[in-house]
């Protein structure tokens, strides 16, 4: 790249690089962000604690903002609620498959007990995060479901 081109492009580069960086910083828990490159340096420091870091005043009082920023496409994760070995149901669920709320997507084998993993909401399977025979922990995402509207 020619040096003249670069000079002309500085504003555009800042727009392209810095804006998403600031946005990511704003949404994170970070209090300080520093970029130290040869020809470019940036340091951002957060003076106030991020909004969601503030202790909740009373149990069960979720900030209303949480709902407001929900993604447009409502993809939800089906998670494991026991520690064990994940097993596919037969036949195995595939991406793109439409499922009902009570549909068994697989099960987690723990201490000889078969713990069914149910979809929990009606929708379309958008992702499968786990393979048959894989050890899973509590809260581990197993499937992504695009909820039916």
């Amino acid at each position: 790249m020619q040096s003249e081109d670069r000079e002309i492009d500085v504003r555009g580069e800042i727009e392209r690089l810095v804006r998403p960086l600031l946005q990511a910083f704003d949404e994170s828990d970070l209090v300080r962000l520093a970029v130290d490159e040869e020809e470019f340096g940036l340091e951002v420091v957060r003076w106030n604690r991020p909004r969601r870091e503030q202790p909740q005043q009373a149990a069960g009082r979720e900030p209303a903002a949480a709902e407001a920023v929900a993604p447009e496409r409502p993809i939800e994760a089906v998670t494991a609620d026991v520690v064990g070995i994940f097993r596919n149901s037969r036949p195995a669920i595939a991406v793109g498959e439409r499922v009902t709320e009570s549909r068994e997507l697989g099960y987690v084998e723990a201490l000889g007990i078969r713990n069914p993993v149910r979809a929990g909401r009606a929708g379309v399977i958008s992702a499968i995060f786990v393979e048959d025979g894989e050890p899973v922990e509590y809260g581990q995402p197993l499937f992504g479901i695009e909820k039916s509207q």
Partner: protein
Amino acid sequence: MNKVLIANRGEIALRINRACHELGIPTVAIFSEADRDSLHVKRADEAFCVGPGPSTRSYLNIPNIISAALISGADAIHPGYGFLAENARFAEICRDHGITFIGPSPDAIRAMGDKATAKRIMTEANVPVTPGTDIVESLGDARAFAERVGYPVLIKATAGGGGKGMRAVHAPEDLEQALNSASSEAQAAFGDGRVYLEKLILNPRHIEVQILADTHGGILILGERDCSVQKPSHQKLIEEAPGPNLSERFRSSLYEVARNAVEAVKYVNAGTLEFLGDGDNFYFMEMNTRIQVEHPVTEEIFDIDLVKEQLRIARGERLTRTQADLRPAGHAIEVRVNAEDPSNNFAPAAGKLKTVQLPGGPGIRVDTHLYEGATVPPYYDSMLAKIIAHGADREEAIARMVRALRETTIEGVKTTIPFCIEVLTDPEFAAGGVDIGYLPRFLAREARVEVGAAP
């Protein structure tokens, strides 16, 4: 022992992880969703989330913990202290799944966990217990006992708990009325009005004996610890070894009794016998069938690694030391640095730690899971760190501890550090041998000074 699952969190999980790694044993950590970024998770070779923040659903979740052990191939579980450490059923479940529980047998845990059984076993082994009666049938029985052991006496409900049906009686003329009211209170609370009497020991010292026992009959008595500096809630705050101002006669008698107790229980692994010290006498209170928070003070003066000994015992090996080659050196003190506000009844605090600067230098050991930016979740014990000072004598150990506490900076939550410095520099503590009433008296004195200083 191929792999050890550590069924705990915080500093003790790290402590066990260190011992395992020094012995070349891989480790598996468990954690709750609130502890995902905890140091014990990072230090272990593998880690499993076993549940959400509240410990009843995570660190006490037996099926998930056993399942994590089975799928990770861990063939032993170290329970640490608290949580499942003294749960006989958990020790049984481990055994049923072919997992070694690093601790005593389920029978020993169960026997020592039941106060009445423990007291009976100890009495049979000639261990002095607080003098007491069977169920009191008449006022005459009660009067005869109180006159024999001397007032004050304590009336307790057989079905008791939480102080219901309990009365302290300081003079003979109060006995009859106290018996009646304790009995009717117990009847109302538990549907069982039966009561018994015990000698009430006012402001005893808390003296405990550390023991180790292997499966080959080897027993080590690792001296005593004095844990008399306790908060009004009876939680220990400062512990030391050896116990200050104890006669050699008291000590040798205490150790002999401890050995008898260990033999009577057929105890294996690490344990602690707690006694109430009253002048030249001591009385068995309870036995803790686990490693204790304050074990490092014993480790420092005997230069021994109690957690590694626990692992070796569980592998069926013999103790690495004999009683004859155990010689205590110097004096060690431990301070519990808690996220608590001593000026507000030791109310626990939670939050994010902005600054963490820990002490070092000669004779200082710090056992902690803290790091800068770590979060103190609200679900668990408020202990942040244990600072242990070892010196040639008690004076040096105290001076080192005060110096170490002054070097320490923890910002983000209130801690017990400034309060502990005040206690350590108090002439009464410096003199040594305070009783369990000392800290409540100290607090009352401080409160009076504050009121007096107000305009």
